[in-house]
């Protein structure tokens, strides 16, 4: 968008988000809402990633870094003149303590990401050295996540309701049930934020969100319901943008359970789904045919490998000798009914009766994730670089293929990104060929960005929303 006026440094940027964090303790509370709101804005790690540049790793609290050729030692140079929001200075000790705590304390989110780290040290005040037990090409990427965030050691702030980070914004106030207000941190080490204040306005209801946009209550609205796109466009003060994510709408088959342990049945189910029609019905997203999304290494367009073909599907079912197949789909009730409706209708067409069990998320965690008691399950796997789930036979997918597991291990162990990427692509192809699941769609949510807003980020806004560079034009 081309803002018409000069950027106004005193402006307030109001952004509509849908899912509110339940509390602000980012290390101990699950949910993408926290990462979206706080990482890069309030909290930072040594490095971060830029979703708009294909998730490239970019410097944050470290100015530069160096990986040893065996891929086991990472040496970071700590940035100078960084202060926390409470004014205290960032020291190498803060970094070491933060990482060490994250590694040692199992209740900290993503603690397992640091399991392979054997030592965390700071030889001098501006150097941090991390040593790994085995090479991991995703390690830097891991550090961009929660486990890599840096906190002020000895801090007494109540992190559940307040925050103390090093980012361009500090948490100003949190109006639970309504909004989270971030204010520009004037002591920020880098370029100061483009707006004085950011209000993250949590509006769960889609039509309410559009009403808010139409009403001028928000400058930017994330996750616009595509059905309502025209309404927003109609008023002329917004442009609708769509960005990529790593959010994979995954229809998981319980690979361990009959008859889904028969590949013909799985393939039959995949063939019964008209992905283009589904995307059209959803109104957003792109068809996705394999486990790796475009923003992740190892992506490859697999669209040719499987095409909508109900006749073939029925044949396959007949071959597999299943008749009057009845399956249950366990789906958390946070997702709109459209997906379930679509699947019921599609499977009915090939003679498979799909019963839908809508459960709340805790029940899903219990039944599907933990106890693996399900036939089909749908959830959106939003995490980036999560191909490892297919290499983990005890994951709820129940997919156990030694070849894929070995390919994945190799991909992590190499230090060559291209090689790693090729290995991953190969593994992904196998997973898709074996119809281990169906990837219904890749989410590409719509964002309504006010014409007065410039430099709003684009990709993966559901997990990262770096707002430092955003400016709002004066009226």
């Amino acid at each position, binding site marked *: 968008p081309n803002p018409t006026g000069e950027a106004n440094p005193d402006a307030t940027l109001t952004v509509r988000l849908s899912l509110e964090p*339940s*509390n602000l*303790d980012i290390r101990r*509370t*699950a*949910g993408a809402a926290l990462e979206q709101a706080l990482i890069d804005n309030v909290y930072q790690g040594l490095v971060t990633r830029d979703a708009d540049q294909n998730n490239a790793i970019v410097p944050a609290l470290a100015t530069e870094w160096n990986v040893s050729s065996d891929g086991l030692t990472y040496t970071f140079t700590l940035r100078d003149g960084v202060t926390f929001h409470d004014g205290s200075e960032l020291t190498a000790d803060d970094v070491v303590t933060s990482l060490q705590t994250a590694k040692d304390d*199992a*209740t900290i*989110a*993503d603690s*397992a990401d640091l399991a392979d780290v054997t030592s965390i040290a700071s030889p001098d005040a501006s150097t941090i050295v991390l040593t790994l037990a085995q090479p991991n090409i995703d390690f830097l990427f891991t550090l961009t996540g929660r486990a890599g965030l840096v906190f002020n050691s000895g801090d007494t702030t109540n992190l*559940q*309701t307040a925050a103390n980070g090093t980012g361009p914004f500090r948490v100003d106030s949190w*109006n*639970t*049930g*309504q*909004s989270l*207000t971030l204010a520009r941190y004037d002591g920020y080490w880098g370029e100061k934020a483009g707006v004085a204040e950011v*209000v993250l*306005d949590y*509006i*769960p*209801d889609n039509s*309410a969100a559009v*009403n*808010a946009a*139409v*009403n001028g*209550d928000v400058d930017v609205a994330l996750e616009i319901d595509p059905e309502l796109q025209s309404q927003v466009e109609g008023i002329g003060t917004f442009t609708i943008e769509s960005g990529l994510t790593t959010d994979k709408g995954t229809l998981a088959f319980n690979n361990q359970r009959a008859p889904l342990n028969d590949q013909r049945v799985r393939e039959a189910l995949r063939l019964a789904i008209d992905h283009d029609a589904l995307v059209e019905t959803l109104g957003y997203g792109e068809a996705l045919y394999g486990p790796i999304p475009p923003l992740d290494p190892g992506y490859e367009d697999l669209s040719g490998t499987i095409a909508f073909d109900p006749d073939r599907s029925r044949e396959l079912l007949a071959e597999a000798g299943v008749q009057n197949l009845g399956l249950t789909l366990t789906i958390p*009730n*946070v997702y709109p009914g459209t997906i379930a409706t679509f699947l019921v209708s599609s499977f009915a067409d090939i003679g498979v009766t799909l019963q839908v069990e809508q459960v*709340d*998320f*805790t*029940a899903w*965690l*219990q039944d599907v*994730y*933990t106890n693996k008691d399900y036939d089909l399950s749908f959830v959106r796997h939003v995490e980036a670089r999560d191909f490892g789930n297919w290499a983990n036979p005890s994951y709820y997918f129940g997919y156990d293929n030694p070849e894929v597991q070995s390919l994945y291990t190799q991909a992590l162990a190499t230090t060559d990104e291209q090689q790693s990427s090729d290995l991953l692509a190969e593994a992904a192809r196998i997973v898709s060929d074996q119809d281990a699941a169906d990837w219904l769609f890749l989410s590409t949510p719509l964002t309504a960005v006010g014409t007065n807003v410039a430099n709003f980020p684009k990709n993966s806004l559901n997990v990262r929303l770096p707002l430092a560079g955003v400016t709002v034009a004066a009226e």
Partner: protein
Amino acid sequence: MIRYTLTRLGLLLLGLAVASVLIFLSLRVLPGDVAQLIAGAEATPQQVAAVRASLGLDAPLWTQYAEWIGGLLRGDLGTSLVTGTSVVSELADKARVTVPLAALSLTVALVVGIPFGVLSALGRRRAAGTAVSVVAQALAAVPVVWAGLMLVVVFSVWLGWLPPQGFPRAGWNDPAAALRALVLPALTIGVVEGAMLLRFVRSATLQAMGQDYVRTAAAKGLTRTRALLSHGLPNVGLSVITVLGLQIAGVIVGAVIIEQLFTLPGIGRMLVGDVASRDLPKVQGELLALTGFVLVVGFLVDLVHRLVDPRQREAA
């Protein structure tokens, strides 16, 4: 009167006790695991167990209940499992939206129900009176969600007079905006509940019109309308008071739905969210607060009824 008040107070406390037990028990039988939810999807069983222990969820039921009630008596409903904030303070915070909303809705319901109920009874042989009663029947049948949607479409989307949803960030520091934000929600609940009240007031008025003492008053020299107004209506009022006790429950239920529709940060919306995230202490507190509210209003209504009705006042 004092004796009655005490007896009724005893009943209120008994009611609250029964409510607390029911709420507590029904929430303990849940299949989902809060600890798992808090620890996150990737947590190990040990982590989950640690979380569970830290939340006191591993204690026997009666200890948990005793602790809850003990806290309640000290004005402490525990802390939210998810946000870590005090439930009482969250309730107090959200009550600033819900209580005014309920009060406004009830006001609207009264303003709609009583005068129009009386008028439609008075004019029951005229077209206007019949029309009012037909409209009331229809409105009383409309789902609250639908009524809210229609009002939003008309007043916000088409006319643009009122905000379609939300509550000002400044809250009651910006009273005008806060009030504006509550107008449509209160109107929605108020009109639907008012329509039900109207049906009641109408028949109560019709009944009053046939009362002998209204005729007696007319025989003393009042016009028939004035006789109805000054002798019939106070008696209608008495029966309306008892109905209000039930109506308040309807208002509260309406508020839960309407807060959702209008994204108002009130107790109802918080409750819906907390039920989904299994935030036990909060759900418990919220349910108890809402039921308690209804019970207390019922108590007050009964007291008022006693006070203004001489027959009951004396029987105490």
